[in-house]
């Protein structure tokens, strides 16, 4: 095979014999994706990275390392992957080491996004582990001259009928795992699972609760210096004047970097860099241009921007009779990811090779963008994922990585740590896009929906890198890169139209996606993308229609839903909540319900809520929530529960409180005072999550499935409590009060 074999010291030290060569080769293959595809393709990310040793390495001493191209974002995937591999390899859970996204060491699995990690990487690991185990058994069979059926595996060893044990390390040889995966694997019977399906404690939590180094923010490389960026005060602002002389004389200052509108300062110590940033900011004069839309007129502005209109779903049955028709418009503002830890990155340029430690969700695409920005070969840039604060989508992580690279280039050999400020994260992160939906539906004489029209107006929901122009540093430098033309994310996953097609069956259905190219405010992917607002709209409107039909909201949903797994989660959540047809909530309280299947192809989630509304102040309070989720085969039940609990609380925060604010020039929500989120005084009394496990069925992503149902369930409970329907997010205390008083 004609691929470059790079032997570095780490690998020489790490392995023995012929194994080294095969792993170095697989690394190269993981990087350039040169492996020819076989038909039919193996499952998950094995389809694009088919070599088993791109996923699993077994050393001669028996040490086993698992490689994933996905990144741990606090969602617990490291632990889940380790469980999957331990199960299918038949090794103790604790014996595995997991390496996550790194452009030199792991497969290119694109972004860790879209609730796809279990489906992509989890499936690849499960099948790679099963096939590796088969190869090891085959090798033992060969040595013993016995049929494989006579052998079994246990605890990292193949066991012969006479009790003889062969450790995996003894069996592995040469390039045994440097083979392409078969399309089909012999997977274990789920009934025999010992590690999968167990709530194994997360591997990352002990360090996080004892002060261990857990985040990129915690990195301290020898000789590391501290950088701060001075961002423009607004989009498109031009630096007209900046005399760095006084700043350069400040204690500890190493360098002031100006490259067009990109301005940064580097100092020995962190607080010196903060002081220098303040001084540099004061020295910089900017010319700003008003260009932001009127915030209180946003829905009208959005709907009036030029759009590319596509009918994404159509079903016609002229025999359906419509008797009553209703219409409603729902809106969502720009919303912030609001990571608790502002973005951070460490970069080091040594002999024209740039290494960047980053909490990006996509080391490979980000590498592409950074190499383009630096105008260097892609192979000279390495990105290593290190955890950051939870991101919930495309926050400042990629930008901080680009900032660090641009600064580190100026300081050859020196590791540079860039830490964004709170104000920079809030002001410059790409927001979750504002959206408008217009719904119109008709009921027939039996109280069933006869016609359904759904139109959604939205920007793209991904401006993630791939190209340099997606990164602020590249946009601001003297020879800037243009922001790439936005593109809609194609269905079936969709972006602005994610979950725009109803899961329910209506005789007449018409769904239109109005894709708006112009982005007056910087936007990109935020947890659940368009599904948050589309599910909020559909599930709110279903309640409005149920009311019109005089039907119970749950019964009304089931009337229109064929999908048996969908029906199961609805019934499970209703049962857990104690939902009863025709029930009345206590005084000043309301019950709400909502359901969706994320992307119409991932996890199913139904959520029932009880909300209390203070009629004097309008203040809403989520009292309790009961959810049911079907995520296919469950790997770590507690991890899944944690994700759904988190989805409910985060979505509640978005839904009740959150809206990015701006004037005609600047973003004005720049910290937690100006962008308030959920605090403990509004945390519910109880959140309950019920899992419907589906042994042996494919993994379905669950990280985003709760966002839409939680929003709509709360909105429906507020409507149930007050008799007033609110359709403009967020459902603030003031809007509720005004509706009560109207």
């Amino acid at each position, binding site marked *: 095979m004609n691929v470059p074999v790079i032997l570095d010291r780490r690998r020489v030290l790490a392995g023995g014999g012929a194994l080294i060569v095969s792993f170095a080769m697989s690394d190269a293959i993981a990087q350039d994706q040169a492996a020819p595809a076989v038909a039919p393709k193996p499952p998950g990310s094995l389809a694009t990275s088919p070599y088993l040793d791109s996923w699993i390495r077994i050393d001669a001493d028996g040490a086993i390392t698992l490689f994933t191209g996905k990144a741990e974002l606090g969602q617990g995937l490291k632990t889940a992957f380790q469980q999957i591999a331990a199960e299918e390899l038949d090794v103790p859970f604790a014996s595995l080491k997991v390496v996550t996204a790194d452009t030199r060491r792991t497969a290119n699995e694109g972004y860790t996004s879209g609730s796809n990690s279990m489906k992509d990487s989890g499936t690849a690991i499960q099948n790679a582990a099963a096939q590796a185990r088969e190869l090891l058994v085959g090798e033992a069979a060969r040595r013993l001259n016995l049929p494989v059926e006579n052998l079994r595996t246990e605890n990292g060893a193949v066991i012969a009928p006479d009790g003889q044990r062969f450790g995996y390390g003894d069996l592995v040889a040469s390039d045994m795992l440097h083979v392409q995966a078969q399309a089909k694997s012999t997977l274990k019977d789920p009934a025999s699972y010992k590690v999968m399906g167990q709530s194994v404690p997360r591997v990352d939590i002990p360090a996080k609760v004892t*002060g261990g180094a857990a985040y990129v*923010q915690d990195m301290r490389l020898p000789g590391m210096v501290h950088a701060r960026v001075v961002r423009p005060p607004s989009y498109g602002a031009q630096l007209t004047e900046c005399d760095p002389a006084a700043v350069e004389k400040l204690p500890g200052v190493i360098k002031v970097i100006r490259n067009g509108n990109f301005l940064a300062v580097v100092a020995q110590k962190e607080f010196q860099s903060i002081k220098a940033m303040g001084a540099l900011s004061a020295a910089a004069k900017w010319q700003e241009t008003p260009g932001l839309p009127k915030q209180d007129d946003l829905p009208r502005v959005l709907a009036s921007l030029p759009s590319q209109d596509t009918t994404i779903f159509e079903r016609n049955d002229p025999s359906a009779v419509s008797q009553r028709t209703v219409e409603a418009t729902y809106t969502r503002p720009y919303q912030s990811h609001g990571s608790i830890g502002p973005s951070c990155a460490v970069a080091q340029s040594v002999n024209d090779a740039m290494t960047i430690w980053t909490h990006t969700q996509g080391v490979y695409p980000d590498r592409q963008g950074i190499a383009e920005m630096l105008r260097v070969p892609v192979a000279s840039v390495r990105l290593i994922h290190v955890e950051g604060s939870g991101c919930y989508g495309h926050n400042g992580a990629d930008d901080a990585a680009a900032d660090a690279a641009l600064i580190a280039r100026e300081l050859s050999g020196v590791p540079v740590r860039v830490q964004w400020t709170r104000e920079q994260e809030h002001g410059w992160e790409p927001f979750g896009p504002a959206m408008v939906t217009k719904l119109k539906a008709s009921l027939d004489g039996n109280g069933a929906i006869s016609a359904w029209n759904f139109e959604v107006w939205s920007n793209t929901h991904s401006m993630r890198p791939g190209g340099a122009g997606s990164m602020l540093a590249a946009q601001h430098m003297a020879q800037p890169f243009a922001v790439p033309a936005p593109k809609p994310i194609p269905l079936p996953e969709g972006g602005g139209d994610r979950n725009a097609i109803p899961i329910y069956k209506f005789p007449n259905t018409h769904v239109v996606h109005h894709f708006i190219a112009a982005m007056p405010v910087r936007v990109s992917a935020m947890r659940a993308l368009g599904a948050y607002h589309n599910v909020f709209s559909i599930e709110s409107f279903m309640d409005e229609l149920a009311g019109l039909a005089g039907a119970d909201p749950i019964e009304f949903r089931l009337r229109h839903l064929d999908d048996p797994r969908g029906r199961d989660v609805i019934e499970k959540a209703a049962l857990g909540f104690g939902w009863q047809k025709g029930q009345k909530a206590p005084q000043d309280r309301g019950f709400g319900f909502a359901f969706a299947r994320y992307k119409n192809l991932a996890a199913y989630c139904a959520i029932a809520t009880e909300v209390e509304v203070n009629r004097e102040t309008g203040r809403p309070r989520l009292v309790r929530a009961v959810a049911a989720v079907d995520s296919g085969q469950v790997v770590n039940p507690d991890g899944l529960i944690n994700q759904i609990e988190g989805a409910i609380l985060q979505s509640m925060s978005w839904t009740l409180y959150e809206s990015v604010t701006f004037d005609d020039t600047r973003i004005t929500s720049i910290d937690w005072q100006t962008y308030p989120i959920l605090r403990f005084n509004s945390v519910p009394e109880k959140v309950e999550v019920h899992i419907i496990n589906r042994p042996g069925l494919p993994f379905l992503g669950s990280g985003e499935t709760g966002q839409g149902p939680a929003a709509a369930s709360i909105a429906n409970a507020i409507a149930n409590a007050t008799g007033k329907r609110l359709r403009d997010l967020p459902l603030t205390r003031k809007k509720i009060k005004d509706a009560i008083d109207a």
Partner: protein
Amino acid sequence: MMNLKVNGHDHQIDAEPDTPLLYVLREDLKLNAAKFGCGLGQCGSCTVIVDGKAVLSCVTPLLLLEGKQVTTLEGLGTISTPAPIQRAFMEEQAAQCGYCIAGMMMRAQALLQRNPKPTDAQIRAELEPHLCRCGTHMRILRAVHRAAHLMDTAELSPATPGSAR
């Protein structure tokens, strides 16, 4: 040079007196637990204990700490011998990304030191200055209750794997 007492040890710190404690802990003393979240005293990620009280280290300058006892999460226990509050957070799996958690734990620790049996309402009120973006609040509350129980029963056997839920 200033003397700073952290986790029971004296340190000579060479930093300007207006340097917020957070940077001294993280950079000079290489302690990870206190986190930079906002630098504005709005989120609680940087919380440490000073003379028994929860303090926001990002807005507390070094000069105010002469002669005081600073405790960080590292000072409470370790992975192998976790303090009750650490054990409780492990056992309840009370983290997602975990970035906010060290600060939460320090304020909870300060609360439990002065009120070993807080009510749920008291815990919620105490944690009001703290933000969590992952929505781990229900687990955090459970973990603080569990910590109170662990401290009360002085049950200090190490956490066992698989004990979550």
